[in-house]
C-alpha cells in the first residue's frame, strides 16, 4: 500500500533538535558533584633528553591530588597504531614541544593551572630536525635513534610501464614543485573526556573520539591493562575531521583515573593545548613532472612526495601512501614513477585530516595538469576529459576500476555549466583594480581502508519491549550525521518513522567493532551492516506477526509504521504486542559487512589499494585584489560522483563543509612551526574561514548507482576537499598569469607573484633547501 510507505531516507537530521536546544551532551559536557581535573605539563622544547621530573612543589600546591610521571605507568607507556613508540608521558626523549612530561590531578581547574607551572624538569637540549628533506640527509639529527632508516619513517614507490622512455616520446612535459601547508582541524570542541574506575574495576572513558574500539586496545596496551578492563564510550563529537582519529586525552585521562580511587576525572584541553598537542594535516613538498602527446593524452607521470610526519608514526605513513595511490588524480596514465617519503621531524604531530594525504598530491597533480594544458594550448577541461578514468580503465597505480566511475560525467557537467561557458565575459567585466579568473580542479578518493586492513562493520538493530526500534551504532558520529542516517536506513528497511527510533552511540561494551569514523566509510560500510541487521529483524517481526494474526505466510503481512498488518486488510497488530511475543534475546539482529577489496593490489604498494572511488570536478571563480593581494572566491561549483544521494541535505553538508575547509587551506590556513616551536598558538593567529570568506556554493550530484553501496551510495565525506586548492591555484593563474607554488595563497604571496617575484623566488627557495 503505497500511502503507508514513506521515504524515510529523506528529511531533516534527527540529531538537530537536541543540538539546537543545547541539550546534546558531548564529552566536554560531563560534570558531577565531585570530580577532579587532569592536565598535562607540556615539554615546550622540541628535542631534548629528559633527566628528571620534579613534582614535589606542584604536589604540595593547594588542591592538588596527584602529580604523575612515567614512573606511575605500569604498562609499556607506548602508544601507536602501526609502530608503538609514542610515550604517554615522556620517559627518555622529548621529540616535540607538545610531548607531555607530567600529569597533574587537581580539585579545580584553577589549582591545576597553578600546579602545572610548578612542575619542572631537567633536560639536555638536542639538535632538532625541522625539514623533511633536510632530515633525510647524511648526518641529520635523528628523531628516533633506533630507527634503522634514519629519519625515514616510510617510503612507498609505484612504478608502472616505462616512464623514462615514455617521457622521451612526449610532445610536451610540464614540471613544478608545490608545497602545501600544515592544516589544523580547529574543530569547535577541543579534545575532551571523562573517566573513572567503576565498581567492577573497569576504567570507563567517555571521550570525544572517532575510534572507540582502537582506543580501547591502545589504552589497554600502553597502561598495562587487560582489554576487558577498559571501556570506551563515544557520544556525539563536536567536530573531528580526522583530528580525533586516535588517542588524544584518552591515556592521560585513564592514567589519572587509575589514581583517584573511583572519583571521576575530567580532561578538556583548552584551545592552546589543542593546537600544541593535537595532530595536523601533514605539510607536503611535491616534485611533479607530467608528459603528454599533442592530442592531450597523458603518457608519463613522475613525482616525488615528501610528507612531514612530525615526531611519531601515528598514521602518517598510511597518509603518505594514500597520497601516492592518488598521485595521478582521476586520469589514465600508463607510465608512472611515484615516490612517497614520510619523514620524522621535531615539528608538530602529523595525523589524519579529511582527505588523508589525497588533498596534498591532488594539489600538485591538478596544477601540473593545467600546466600541460597550457603548453598544449588546450582547454583545461578538455585535457581532463581526454584522460578521464572510466569503468574498466586502470588508474595511475594500476587498479582496474570495476565499480561505478562517474568522473567523465562530472567533467561534462562542468563543461556545460554557465560559469565555465561565460568565463571570458565574466573575466572581462572585472571591477577596477581587480583581476578575475576561473580555475578547475578534479579528484578521486578511495573508499574505506586499503586491501590489507579489513574494512568491516557490525551493526545491531533491536525491537524494544515497547515496540520501538533501536539501532546500536559502532561508528562515532563526529558531526557528519551518520547516526541519524543509520536510523533512516533502518527506518527505510522496516518502514518505520525514524523519528520514533532510538540510536545508541558507540560503546565498546556493546561489542560491535566496526572500525573508525573515517575513510569516507561511515555510511557506506556501517550502512550496509544496518541494512542486513534491519532486514533480519524485519523477518523476525513478520514471522511473529504471521503466527499471532493467524494468516498464511510472511508474504501475506507487511510492516507499516508502528504495526504488522495483513496485506490488503485493516487487520494489524501493534509492534508493542509483537514484541511481547518474542523473548528479549530474539528481538535483535546483527548485520555484518566488509567493503570490497582486492588482495592482488598488495603487489602494487604498501597496504594494497582501494577498489572503489568517488570522484569530482570543481570550478572556482575568483577575484584578485591587485592592491591588497586578497583573493576572494566569488563562486564555487562542485560536481561530485559519490554514487546515489540518500539525503540531499546531509550530502550537501559534506560538500559545503569540505569546500569551506578547502578554501581555508588554499587561502589562509597555515599552522606555522619554526625550529620546532609553534608560532600559531590560538584562533587569533590561526585564521579559519568565517561566514564572510565562503561564497554560496553550487553542488551538483552525478549519481551513478554503486551496486555495492547502501541504496547505491559511495562516501562523500572527503572527496570534495581535494579539488579546492588546485581549482583556486589554477584560477589565480588564469587571472594573473602567475603561479604561486606554495600554499596558502596569502596576500603577501599574491603581491609577490604579481610583482613577478612569486614563482621564481619560491621555486628557487624550494630547490635550494
Amino acid at each position: 500500500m503505497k500511502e503507508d510507505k514513506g521515504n524515510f531516507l529523506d528529511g531533516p537530521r534527527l540529531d538537530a533538535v537536541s543540538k539546537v536546544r543545547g541539550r546534546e551532551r558531548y564529552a566536554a559536557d560531563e560534570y558531577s558533584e565531585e570530580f577532579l581535573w587532569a592536565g598535562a605539563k607540556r615539554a615546550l622544547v622540541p628535542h631534548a633528553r629528559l633527566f628528571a621530573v620534579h613534582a614535589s612543589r606542584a604536589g604540595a600546591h593547594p588542591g592538588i591530588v596527584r602529580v604523575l610521571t612515567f614512573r606511575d605507568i605500569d604498562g609499556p607507556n607506548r602508544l601507536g597504531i602501526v609502530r608503538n613508540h609514542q610515550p604517554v608521558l615522556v620517559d627518555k626523549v622529548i621529540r616535540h614541544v607538545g610531548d607531555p612530561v607530567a600529569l597533574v590531578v587537581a580539585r579545580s581547574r584553577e589549582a591545576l593551572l597553578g600546579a602545572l607551572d610548578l612542575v619542572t624538569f631537567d633536560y639536555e637540549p638536542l639538535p632538532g630536525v625541522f625539514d623533511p628533506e633536510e632530515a633525510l640527509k647524511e648526518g641529520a639529527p635523528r628523531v628516533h635513534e633506533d630507527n634503522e632508516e634514519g629519519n625515514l619513517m616510510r617510503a612507498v614507490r609505484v612504478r608502472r610501464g616505462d616512464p623514462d622512455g615514455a617521457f622521451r616520446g612526449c610532445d610536451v612535459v610540464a614540471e613544478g614543485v608545490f608545497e602545501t601547508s600544515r592544516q589544523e582541524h580547529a574543530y569547535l570542541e577541543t579534545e575532551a573526556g571523562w573517566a573513572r574506575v567503576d565498581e567492577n574495576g573497569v576504567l570507563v572513558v567517555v571521550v570525544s573520539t572517532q575510534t572507540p574500539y582502537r582506543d580501547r586496545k591502545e589504552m589497554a596496551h600502553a597502561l598495562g591493562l587487560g582489554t576487558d578492563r577498559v571501556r570506551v564510550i563515544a557520544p556525539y563529537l563536536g567536530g573531528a575531521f580526522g583530528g580525533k582519529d586516535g588517542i588524544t586525552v584518552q591515556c592521560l585521562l585513564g592514567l589519572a583515573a587509575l589514581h583517584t580511587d573511583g572519583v571521576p576525572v575530567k580532561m578538556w584541553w583548552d584551545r592552546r593545548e589543542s593546537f600544541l598537542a593535537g595532530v595536523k594535516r601533514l605539510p607536503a613538498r611535491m616534485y611533479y613532472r607530467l608528459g603528454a602527446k599533442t592530442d592531450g593524452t597523458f603518457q608519463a607521470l613522475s613525482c616525488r612526495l615528501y610528507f612531514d610526519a612530525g615526531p611519531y608514526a601515528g598514521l602518517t605513513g598510511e597518509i603518505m601512501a594514500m597520497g601516492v595511490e592518488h598521485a595521478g588524480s582521476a586520469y589514465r596514465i600508463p607510465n608512472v614513477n611515484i615516490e612517497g617519503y614520510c619523514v620524522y621531524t621535531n615539528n608538530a604531530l602529523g595525523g589524519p585530516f579529511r582527505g588523508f594525504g589525497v588533498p596534498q598530491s591532488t594539489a600538485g597533480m591538478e596544477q601540473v595538469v593545467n600546466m600541460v594544458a597550457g603548453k598544449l594550448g588546450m582547454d583545461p577541461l578538455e585535457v581532463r576529459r581526454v584522460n578521464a578514468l572510466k569503468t574498466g580503465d586502470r588508474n595511475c597505480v594500476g587498479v582496474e576500476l570495476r565499480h561505478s566511475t562517474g568522473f567523465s560525467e562530472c567533467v561534462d557537467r562542468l563543461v556545460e555549466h554557465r560559469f565555465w561557458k561565460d568565463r571570458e565575459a565574466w573575466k572581462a567585466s572585472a571591477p577596477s583594480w581587480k583581476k578575475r579568473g576561473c580555475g578547475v580542479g578534479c579528484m578521486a578518493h578511495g573508499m574505506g581502508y586499503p586491501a590489507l586492513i579489513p574494512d568491516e562493520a557490525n551493526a545491531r538493530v533491536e525491537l524494544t519491549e515497547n515496540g520501538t526500534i533501536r539501532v546500536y551504532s559502532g561508528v562515532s558520529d563526529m558531526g557528519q550525521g551518520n547516526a541519524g542516517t543509520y536510523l533512516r536506513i533502518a527506518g527505510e528497511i522496516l518502514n518505520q518513522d525514524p523519528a520514533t527510533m532510538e540510536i545508541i552511540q558507540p560503546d565498546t561494551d556493546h561489542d560491535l567493532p566496526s572500525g573508525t569514523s573515517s575513510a569516507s566509510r561511515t555510511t557506506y560500510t556501517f550502512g550496509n551492516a544496518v541494512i542486513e541487521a534491519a532486514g533480519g529483524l524485519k523477518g523476525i517481526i513478520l514471522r511473529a506477526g504471521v503466527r499471532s494474526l493467524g494468516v498464511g505466510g510472511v508474504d501475506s503481512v507487511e510492516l507499516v509504521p508502528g504495526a504488522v498488518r495483513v496485506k490488503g486488510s485493516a487487520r494489524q497488530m501493534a509492534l508493542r504486542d509483537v514484541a511481547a511475543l518474542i523473548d528479549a534475546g530474539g528481538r535483535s539482529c546483527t548485520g555484518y559487512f566488509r567493503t570490497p577489496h582486492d588482495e592482488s593490489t598488495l603487489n602494487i604498494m604498501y597496504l594494497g589499494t582501494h577498489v572503489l572511488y568517488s570522484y569530482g570536478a570543481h570550478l572556482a571563480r575568483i577575484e584578485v585584489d591587485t592592491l591588497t593581494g586578497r583573493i576572494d572566491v566569488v563562486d564555487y561549483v562542485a560536481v561530485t560522483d559519490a554514487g546515489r544521494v540518500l539525503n540531499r541535505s546531509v550530502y550537501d553538508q559534506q560538500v559545503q563543509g569540505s569546500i569551506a575547509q578547502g578554501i581555508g587551506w588554499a587561502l589562509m590556513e597555515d599552522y606555522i612551526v619554526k625550529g620546532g616551536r609553534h608560532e600559531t598558538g590560538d584562533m587569533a593567529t590561526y585564521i579559519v574561514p568565517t561566514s564572510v570568506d565562503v561564497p554560496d556554493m553550487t553542488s551538483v550530484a552525478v549519481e551513478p548507482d554503486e551496486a555495492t553501496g547502501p541504496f547505491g551510495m559511495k562516501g562523500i565525506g572527503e572527496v570534495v576537499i581535494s579539488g579546492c586548492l588546485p581549482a583556486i591555484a589554477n584560477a589565480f593563474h588564469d587571472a594573473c598569469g602567475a603561479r604561486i607554488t606554495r600554499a596558502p595563497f596569502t596576500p603577501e604571496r599574491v603581491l609577490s607573484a604579481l610583482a613577478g617575484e612569486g614563482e621564481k623566488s619560491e621555486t628557487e627557495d624550494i630547490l635550494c633547501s
Partner: protein
Amino acid sequence: MKQKISFVLNDSPVAVETDPGRRAVDVLREDLGLTGTKEGCGEGECGACSVLVDNVVKLSCLMTAGQLEGKRVVTIEGIAGDGELHPVQRSFVELGAVQCGFCTPGMVVTAVGFLEVNPAPTRDEIRVAMSGNVCRCTGYQKIIDAVEDAAEKMRAGSSRG
C-alpha cells in the same frame, strides 16, 4: 573570595556563591549545569559561548561572573525553554544548518539577538552579523539560509499577530 551574585537566568532569578572573578561561561556550565553554552577558544574568537545579556549578544568566556550581577541572562536553554522551538531553531533544523552542533547554540543565540535588532536583514547583512561565530562543519551556507528563512517567518508571524 566568594560572593553572592544574583541575576535573572532564562526568566528565573538565580543566586550563586562564587568568586566574582571566575569566567561567566564556567559558572553557567559547571555551577548551573547549563552545558548548552559551549567554549571553543576561550578568547573571544569563535562565538560558541554566546549568550544574551540584557538582550545583547555577549561572549561568556570574556565575561566575569561579577558582570552578571543584576542582569537578565538568556542562554540557549532559555531561547525556547521546554516549549516549541524558536523560529530560528526551527529553521536551523529544517534547513540543515546543524552538523556537529558544537557551534550551534552560539549561532542560534547570535541570530536571535541579531534579528531583534534587524528583523529584515539582507543576506550580506546576515553574513556579517554571523561572522563572529566560527563553524568548522557547514561552510555557513545553510546557516545563512536558516537565518534568512527564520527572519522571513518571524516577520510573517508578527504581521499576522
